[in-house]
């Protein structure tokens, strides 16, 4: 399926700005190769995400940021390489094994991905109802608790189509964390939001990380917020990847990286100022 001749990206592995300590990595990708529609998204990607920390994945569009989240969640399988979550090889898991793994994961999709014919309450209650471990009353209590924690109230009977962008994201967030997962994966949580909502979302995510100690991986375009909240940064630019703490990334003496942080992610290829 992969046609090498179409690949405009050259290989490389990761170029860590600081050495990683693999033992700390709760989630890691090792020499992963992914191809999407005859375009090589990445060829031999290796990176890691430390436990309990907020990791942020930055990069231009099409650089494969969302693909990383999907690989971790087991929604797609790598063509080569190993994706490891808490010691388990995600690509090797059976369907049942994946379901068990996913109880530890929560994912917030870019558009929310709420079931559009179910109300807000039903959407957030769904994961608990499917587990069939709690009574309806307990479930209702948990749902209302989590909704007020994310700042959504009086929306029980609304349909997703009736919610504003910010509220939609927060309801999706509530649904993702209601089972208290160990890992939260967020795909572009800030895109399309106004600056105030971005701040609120940022504060919410940080609060969740602090309160529950959840490992978080946030994929985003928005540099200021992500740099503020990140403990660990991954930058995918062109065919290369940089990892490190926010301070190190800013101080990086690599020209491309510095340009990215100065000029923002609108530039897909580092090719001179537009």
């Amino acid at each position: 399926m992969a046609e090498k001749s179409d690949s405009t990206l050259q290989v490389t592995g990761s170029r860590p700005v600081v050495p990683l300590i693999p033992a700390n990595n709760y989630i890691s990708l090792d020499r992963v190769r992914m191809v999407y529609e005859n375009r090589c998204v990445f060829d031999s990607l290796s990176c890691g995400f430390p436990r309990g920390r907020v990791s942020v994945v930055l990069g231009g569009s099409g650089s494969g940021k969302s693909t990383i989240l999907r690989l971790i969640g087991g929604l797609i399988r790598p063509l080569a390489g190993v994706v490891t979550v808490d010691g388990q090889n995600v690509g090797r898991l059976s369907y049942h094994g994946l379901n068990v793994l996913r109880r530890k994961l929560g994912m917030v999709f870019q558009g929310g991905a709420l079931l559009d014919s179910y109300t807000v309450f039903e959407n957030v209650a769904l994961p608990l109802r499917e587990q069939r471990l709690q009574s309806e009353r307990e479930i209702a209590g948990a749902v209302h608790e989590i909704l007020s924690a994310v700042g959504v109230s009086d929306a029980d009977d609304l349909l997703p189509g009736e919610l504003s962008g910010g509220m939609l994201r927060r309801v999706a967030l509530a649904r993702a964390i209601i089972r208290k997962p160990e890992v939260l994966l967020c795909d572009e949580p800030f895109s399309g939001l106004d600056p105030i909502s971005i701040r609120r979302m940022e504060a919410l995510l940080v609060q969740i990380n602090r309160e529950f100690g959840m490992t978080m991986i946030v994929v985003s375009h928005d540099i200021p917020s992500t740099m503020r909240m990140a403990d660990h940064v991954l930058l995918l630019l062109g065919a290369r990847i940089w990892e490190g703490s926010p301070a190190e990334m800013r101080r990086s003496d690599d020209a491309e990286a510095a340009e990215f942080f100065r000029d923002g992610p609108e530039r897909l290829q580092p090719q001179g100022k537009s």
Partner: protein
Amino acid sequence: MANPVSHVGYRAIRFVQELGSIAAFTVDIARTALTPPVRFAAFVRELHKLGVRSLLIICVCGLAVGMVLGLQGHHTLVRFGAQRSLGAVVGLSLIRELGPVLTALLVAGRAGSATAAEIGSMVVTEQLNGLRMLSIDPVSLVIKPKAAAMLVVTPLLTALFIACGLYGGYLVGVGLLAGDPGSYMSSLRSAVNFHNDIECCMLKSAVFGLLLGLIATYRGYTSAPTAEGVSAATTSSVVISSVTVLLTDYVITALWGI
């Protein structure tokens, strides 16, 4: 593609892959059908969407087809002096063939395309992926109630179609063309046999319902995650359903006669 031979080969391989994929999907649905939870509320909701909402089109078309049969049948039978058998002609045509087949085609067009489009748009907006990340099987939550509802709805709608058709034939044969009401009903009753005709009709409509449910849900489930993909899934669902219904009709008719 530069090489037509390899293109044909590629297509053939893809076709066989598709068959395998459909078979796997069918087994998946069967597995979820046999495991709890029953999801009755969703099933009832689908019955409403697919069945109750199709009532008007089915009854109107049934009536129209019955009326046409009455008209055409009368004109033909009159040549042989056999107008009294109009009830039999209308009844047998409807019960043996036109009822199950036309109902299935109408259901494929209305309910089938709606189902494929709905599931396809759930794929585009990643709702199915969202379910997977919650350890919920989308086949069980979304597909199972829809496929089961299609299976149940089709025979019911077929019977209603036929009833409206018989009435349409009566309206034309007796009301319009001044036939004898008694002989319409008695020729109908004497010509129609439960085993040969009604059982065959119900079997056909049940099989059609099963096929329609599978095809519509499969095409929606496997649609490409783009707007164009959803539209392609919807139209191909209708086309594939229609062709399959007509071919299966032949197979069942031939086998039943043995």
